[in-house]
Each structure stands twice: as C-alpha cells, then as structure tokens.
C-alpha cells in the first residue's frame, strides 16, 4: 500500500529523517514508535507529499503519487498539531473538509453524521470547537481525517494530550477503522498504544528505523529479558561487579533470571531502597536498541 525507500530529509544541518525504508501492507496498522524528535512526523509528511524528500521515494501502490489530487482523495491525515477551525462548530468543520474531499449532498450529510457519532460529538455538533476539551478536539481532528473513508490513514500522535476517557474512545474508533480494512500508519511515543493497536511496530530514533516487526517478534528478538531497576541506598563497594550502568543512583540491567541476579548483588554487598522488575515490553526493546529509555529519550 505504502512503500518508503531510502527517505531522507534534512532541515539545515539537522538530519530529521535518515534513510527510512518502510513498507505498509494493505489493511495493516503500522506503528512508528519513537521519542520526540525521532523524525516520525517528518516521515509522515514525506509520505503525504507535504514535504519533498532530499532523497528516496514514496510509492503508494495501486494509488499513484500523492501529488495527484485523485490519489490524495484516498488518503486521510490527522496532523499531530490539531488542525481544526476553532471558530467553527464540529458540524461546520466536518462539512468543510468533507466538501474539499469531494463529498456532496446526501453523501456529505451521512458522512458527517457518521463521523460525529464515531467521535462522540453528536451533542456538541453545533458548538464552536474552541469551547471543546482537548480530548474532544482530538476526536474531531481524527474525524476530519476519516469522514471520506480513506483507504490509507496516517495518524500522527492522535492521542497527544488527551484524558484517559478520550484516549479510550480514540482507540475504539481506530480499531473500528482498522476492522473496516483501512490501512493505518500510527505514530506515537507511547509503547502501550503501539502494543495495543499495531500489527507491526517500527522503532524509530534519530531519523532511522532501528527495527520493524510485529510486537511479539520484537519482544522475542530484542526484549526477551526482563529489566531490573534498583534504587541504590548507598554507593556500591568498589569491588562489586555490576551487570549494568548506574544513572541517577539507579542500576538498570536486563537479565533472564532476576531473582538470581538480585541475590548475587546482595551477596556483593549492595543495598537498595527499592527495586522494580519489568517484564519485557516495547520499552525494553527500545532500551536494548538505543541504550536509552523511551520515556527519558
């Protein structure tokens, strides 16, 4: 459906996207997981043709170039920064964007009603969106991207800054769209979202795709070990052999058998205030691939 080959984009000296190769199959939901500044949004904009790549190519299999308006009609895009008119109501926003997508008359009205229902905004449809909560705006931002039933949907951090309730609502909407067969590219810096929604996840950092596979395969390949995090009560003895680096008084390491490792540390004379054992997840995958935590990156 979408193939990105050797994509590269620089802003001055900064390399935002550094040779990205990705392929999205029809009907699949692909996640781009990476910290802020990883180059996710830039990749999406390159895929959409909003930005021109310095190198590489974008292919929309079976569709054509995104420069062609008829191809764009089959794309949906929910930008990371809310892109709705705050002085207009949800109704007016949806009608406007629907018309731009070529919807008219009864088709338009039906699409708007469906989109409002999907976004849970039927009651507030005539209110100016400037009066909406962050979560409602996000839901409308998504609805504006989906009301023309696009074949390929690009969602850039669609849950940024929303309350848990709205987040759940958004998840359900996206799952419904995926169930309808929509191909989705979903960027996020929350691993829980990627784990819940995505068939495959691309781990992105510094403009590169470090790994791309199903969540299970990623865990198997890069995150098989649980991670132990120990908050030290005092500096360890100089003689101690540590299994990982100490940062901010915390010792972090991945290990197959946490109990044994901890017993060994205690035997070496280490004392800790608290300890946490984390099962393998995309966070650990990211840690293993980059040496950094997704949260801290």
């Amino acid at each position, binding site marked *: 459906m979408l193939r990105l080959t050797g994509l590269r984009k620089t802003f001055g000296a900064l390399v935002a996207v550094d040779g990205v190769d990705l392929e999205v199959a029809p009907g699949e939901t692909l996640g781009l997981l990476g910290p802020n500044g990883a180059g996710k949004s830039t990749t999406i904009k390159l895929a959409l043709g909003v930005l021109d790549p310095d190198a590489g190519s974008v292919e929309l299999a079976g569709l054509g170039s995104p420069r062609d308006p008829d*191809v764009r009609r089959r794309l949906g895009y929910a*930008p990371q920064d809310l892109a709705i008119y705050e002085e207009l109501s949800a109704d007016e926003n949806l009608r406007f964007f629907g018309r*731009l997508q070529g919807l008219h008359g009864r088709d338009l009205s039906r699409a708007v009603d469906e989109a409002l229902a999907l976004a849970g905004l039927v009651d507030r449809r005539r209110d100016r969106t400037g009066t909406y909560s962050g979560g409602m705006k996000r839901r409308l931002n998504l609805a*504006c991207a989906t009301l023309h039933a696009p074949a390929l949907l690009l969602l850039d951090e669609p849950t940024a800054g929303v309350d848990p309730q709205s987040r759940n609502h958004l998840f359900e909407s996206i799952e419904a769209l995926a169930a309808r067969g929509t191909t989705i590219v979903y960027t996020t810096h929350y691993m829980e979202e990627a784990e819940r929604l995505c068939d495959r996840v691309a781990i992105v950092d510094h403009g590169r795709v470090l790994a791309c596979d199903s969540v299970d395969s990623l865990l198997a390949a890069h995150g098989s070990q649980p991670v132990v995090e120990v908050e030290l009560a005092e500096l360890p003895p100089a003689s101690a052999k540590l299994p990982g680096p100490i940062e901010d008084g915390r010792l972090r390491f991945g290990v197959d058998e946490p109990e044994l490792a901890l017993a060994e540390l205690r035997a070496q004379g280490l004392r800790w205030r608290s300890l946490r054992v984390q099962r393998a997840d995309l966070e650990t995958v990211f840690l293993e691939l980059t040496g950094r935590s997704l949260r801290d990156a």
Partner: protein
Amino acid sequence: MSTIWTLAKKDLLLLSRDKLALFWMLLFPFVFAVFFGAIFGGQGDGSSNRIKVAVVQEGLDAGKEAFLARLDDRPVELVRVPRAEAADLVRRGKASAYLDLVRVPADAFAVFRGETAEIELGIDPSRLAERGMLEGFLAEASFGGLREVFTDRAAGIAAARKAREDLSVGEDVPLAQRVVLATFFASLETFFGAIDFTRGDAGGANPMAGPAIRTVDVTRARSGPLNAYDVSFPQAILWGLLGCAAGFAQTFVRERSSGTLVRLWTAPIGRSTVLLGKALACAIAAAGIVVVLLAAGALTFGVGVSRPATLALAIAASAFCFGGVSVLLSTIGRTEQANAGIAWGLLCLLAMIGGGMVPQFVMPAWMRQIGAVSPVRWAIEALEGGIWRSYSIGEVLVPVAALLGFGAAGMVAGMLRLRRI
C-alpha cells in the same frame, strides 16, 4: 470552481465571527470617514478657496483689462487662454468657469448712455454656488463703487444731494469745476427722482441690475464633490479594503500556524485553488465593505451615487484588486505578527502615496504622479468616478484597468512565492 467557493465560504464564515477584523473593515473606516469629513467640511471642500477662471484672451483691450483688475481682490484666479480652449478647460475640470468679455463699456458712467457689459460665463449648471459667486463678482466689477448707489434709488438721491452739499462747503475744488459738478449732481438728484431705474421702465432691460451675463452650460466631466463626505468616504472605504486585504492575508498565515493549511495541502485540491479561495473570499468581503460603507454614508451624510454603472464597475475592480493583493500579502511572513507588521507597513505606504490619508488633490503634482504606483489611488479615483466625478464607463476604464492589473499581479506573484515557500 465549487471547491474555490467552498474555501471562500469557509473564510467568509470565519470572518463573520471575527469581531476584531470586522472592526478594522467596517467600523474603523466609518469613523475615519466621519472624522475627516467633519474636518474637511470646516474648510469648504478642502481645496483652495480661489475659484479658477479661464479668461478668453482674444480682444482684451484696456477697458477689459481694467474690468479684470477689479476682480483682483476677489477669491478668483484668472488664467488667460485662447477662446478655443476655454470651454474645454471647464469640461475637463481644470477651471471652474470661463469668461468671455464680449463687450465692456470703457467707463463706469457709460451706463448713463445705456451701455452695459456683455459677458459670457461658461460654467457647469450644477455648480450653483460658484456660479452665484462669480455672477456677483462680475456685477461688482462692472459697476465698481457705483453699483450700490444706482441700485438703491433713495440712497442714490441721498448720495447725490450729499455730494452737492459737500461740494458747496469744500474749499479746495476750483470754482469753475464746482459749478459744473453742482449742476451735475443737482441734475442727478432730479434724474433719480424722475426715473426709477431699478424697476427697469427705462425701456426693456434694466441696465442697473448688472451686466448682461449670458451663462453657457458646460457640463463638467468631473463635477466637484457635493460635500466633504463625498471625499472622506471613498478614502475611508479604501481603509476598509486595506483592512480586508491585510485581514485575509492574516487568515492564511493563521491557517499555517494553526495547522489547518496542512490539511488543505493534503486535500485533493491544488495549492493555487487554496489561494484562489482566499482571493475570492477577500474580494466578496471587499465588495461588501464598499456597499455597506457607502450605504452608511448615504444614510448619514447624504453621500450620493452619480453613476451607478460606473460605481458597480469600480467596486468589482477594486474587489478583484484587493483580492489579488491579499494573495501576495498572504505569502509574507511566517508568523501572524510578522505578517501583520509587514503587510500593514506596506499597505500604509500605498495608502499614503495613493491619497488614502491626505486626498490626492491637495498633494503637489510630483507626489500625485508617484501615487500612480499605488492601487489605492486608482481605487479612489474609480469609486469617486461613480460617487461624484460622474465618470462615464469609458472614463473609468483607465483606473479599472489599473486595478485589474494590480490584482492580477498580486495573485500571480503570490502564487509564485508560495511555490518557493
């Protein structure tokens, strides 16, 4: 086309909810018009108070020159021109009137011989105030100080008697002359008593009533503004149009900063379509501004429409022009602040040289020529053409063409700039 309309409609809807923009586009111009109308109103129409009069130079003899000299202390500026050019000057508004002194008696006392001045005064029939003033000046000049005396019979008799009495007590007039004058004044007294000149029963025309002024109607192509608001409203409308162009440029930059522009770029429409939508919305708003402000001017200060068809054309061309200008302004500056600053700076400059602040007719000639590079100048002329200059469609074509040119240039330049951004 329907997409352009969809885009324009959205912008007009946004505008209708933007109180600040509406203030700059409607209320501010209205206040401007009232304020400057009141100021100009205090000094006539703001132009020089001297009435410019073309005098036919053929056949000007000493008597006629003396006649003209008597107009000197009046607020009249005389220019001597060949007979062939006189009427044309009036027609083109270069002179308020022309004078042809067909016959002017050699001396003031010629009236006693039944001789009166015969003067052709060419003036636009609608310029009643100037006409009345000029006729008064001409009458004054033709009789000099005698006029008052001869039009008031009782005063005439009294004056003649007083002159005779003064003469009898005066010592410095030689005796021989004193006798002649005494006889003259006595007969003058009798003369006044016997004949009432002011009733005109001395046979036909009353020579005392004034010179025979034959008025020739010369319909002036550019008649003067009827009141100061005729001048201040077109200016104010231009401020509304500038506010409109700047406001729509702002909305474009706001689309960029608020992210909606990316949505427009990814919609199945061309980038130029997006700009055309902006231009259309701006043009519609601009036309609306002209109509609303003119209606307000008409209702409150009697601002009129002398040529509806010309005005309609002027409004359409101005709307197109500022729609195009807004497209160019849209591409200036990345932030709303930068855009507003640069756009308003540019527009104020255009307004200043184009007569949007100080009317062009009080500017020196060189400054008026520079004004030609400002669409403001052409829009004002075109609108005035329909409001009080009474331009025919043919006459308004030059400003209209200039406006269309500016509009098209703005649109093309804006699209080219956008392609580079």
